[in-house]
């Protein structure tokens, strides 16, 4: 049992790798759904580093999702740039925006910070809508090609599924490594008590910007993957509503645990698949879920899972 608890992630990786040919029945539709799930896992995990670990509330994470998506879309559609280079360009622009805006935005506290991140998100979206000649405006950007690396094109949903989930695994692994390192420890100090942190020489502003940039880069990657998956981009997918959805995933899964938000993203993205005819209920459901979590289950789903795991492990050891 203890072995299982320690190496569960190997089993998970095996499951993800073996899903399409077995349970998935090589269905492109199912692969497509899971690609969406993977993209949102990246978004949720990247936000967790910023919100869960560093304690900086962001209601505008979709801004970087948008930058990645549109840079990839525009460069591949209008300039024929290779998707890989376009993705890197998106990461670069997201990092630059986060770096430039980071210090003043993250110097704000609580409500001001939330509003500033919301405003940033809306500025990006309204710019996308307004700069029609560049982005296709409200009608959207069409004909984004499939992702390809040096000639190999990921037209096939199943192939793209493996690419996306390989990237998801990399992002989650990196996030865990960072979170558990001395860097992650420093973030926790900043989250707990900035004044005390400063008295030990921690430059809170600098560390906050660094996390902001990292989370922006990850969100941008998710955006690029999204663009090549959809083939079509509309500004509606990057609004504050999307940012709020990511927030719900964060809390549902268990904020501040990396794995928790990943779980939250999986849950929240698979739920509509199960409740197909209840599309209109999505907004209400998300709100109610978030309320229930905040009041009754603050540690989220992951908190429940760890609780069960701990009970089994101690029982086995005893």
């Amino acid at each position, binding site marked *: 049992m203890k072995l299982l608890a320690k190496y569960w992630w190997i089993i998970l990786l095996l499951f993800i790798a073996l899903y399409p040919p077995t349970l998935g029945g090589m269905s492109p539709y199912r692969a497509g759904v899971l690609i969406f799930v993977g993209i949102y896992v990246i978004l949720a995990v990247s936000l967790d580093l910023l919100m869960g670990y560093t*304690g900086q*509330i962001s*209601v505008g994470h979709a801004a970087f999702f948008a930058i990645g998506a549109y840079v990839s879309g525009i460069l591949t559609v209008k300039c024929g740039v290779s998707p890989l280079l376009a993705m890197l360009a998106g990461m670069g622009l997201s990092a630059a925006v986060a770096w430039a805006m980071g210090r*003043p*935005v993250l*110097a*704000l*506290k*609580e*409500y*001001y910070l*939330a*509003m*500033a991140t*919301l*405003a*940033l998100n*809306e*500025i990006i979206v*309204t*710019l996308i*809508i*307004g700069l029609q000649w560049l982005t296709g405006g409200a009608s959207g950007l069409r004909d984004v090609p499939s992702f390809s690396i040096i000639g190999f094109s990921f037209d096939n949903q199943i192939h793209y599924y493996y690419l996306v989930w390989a990237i998801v695994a990399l992002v989650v692994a990196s996030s865990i490594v960072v979170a558990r390192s001395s860097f992650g420890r420093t973030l926790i100090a900043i989250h707990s008590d900035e*004044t005390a942190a400063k008295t030990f020489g921690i430059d809170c502003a600098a560390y906050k910007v660094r996390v902001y940039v990292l989370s922006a880069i990850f969100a941008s990657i998710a955006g690029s993957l999204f663009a090549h998956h959809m083939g079509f981009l509309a500004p509606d997918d990057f609004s*504050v509503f999307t940012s*709020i959805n990511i*927030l*719900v995933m964060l*809390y549902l899964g268990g904020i501040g645990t990396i794995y928790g938000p990943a779980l939250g993203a999986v849950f929240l993205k698979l739920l509509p698949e199960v409740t197909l005819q209840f599309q*209109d*209920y*999505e*907004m*209400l*459901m*998300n*709100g*109610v879920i*978030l*309320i229930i979590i*905040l*009041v009754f289950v*603050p540690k989220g789903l992951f908190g429940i899972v760890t609780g069960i795991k701990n009970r089994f492990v101690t029982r086995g050891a005893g």
Partner: protein
Amino acid sequence: MGDFSHLVQFLFSGLTSGSVYALMAVSLVIVYKVSLLICFAQGEFFVVGALTMVTLVSKGLPMPVAFALSVLVAMVLGALVERVLIRPIQHTGVGNLIVMTIAISLALRGSALLIWGKESHILAPFSAGKPIAVLGATLQPQVLWIMGITILVLLVIWLFFEKTTLGVAMRACAENQLGASLMGISTQKAAILSWAWGAGIGALAGMTVAPLLFMQYGSGVMPMVKGFVAMSIGGLASIAGAVIAGFLLGIVEAYTIGLISSQFSDTIVFAILIIVLFIRPSGLFATTGRREV
């Protein structure tokens, strides 16, 4: 002469939206003054008030009755939200409270979507009447209603918070709980009252402007955000500041749309918000001079 009439038209439009922003800002300030909270769900009370009135009127109720009932519904809703959802997690920190108000906003908006659907709803103007010509521009009679009701509401609020014992006590709540309770109000009662007030005023804003707009479930988000912009400019805890800033914002926005560009007017408003947030000294969430340690 044609240009001048356009400028006047923009002014009217600015005053109209300015009233909405002023009312929204004031409703946010009231809740903030008492509980040091900013309610992200304020825009939902705006919508719920308006759409409730639409429904009641369509069921045949006379306008004034529908008006009063809708305000009441919003106030009860606001009080319920505070009591059932905000108070239990009050002690768990600001971060959680912010997310809770976001959650409430989601839930209310989602409910509005289910109850009233995605379509836009129209409310008849409060009084029949043709548009009035003023200085070459047209003025809808509803605008007079909006301005009138706004001024009345602001007057009542000002009187309440400045002149009545209860109001002064409520103002004291955020800063001095013991003092406030000595004046006859517990922080809990004050909190519920302030939320009820805030929701009611938000609903009022929605109802008065409904005849001029197409109202749908999501129409409250922008008014709330712009109310927050006005609140930030005017000084978080200042009702007068919120009012002035609200009108200013409405007018600036109207002229921006009219003279510069309508496509990027929202971008500009959000840019203004960010600039305002940067200029305010960071961390100054309460009164000046509050020590950091």
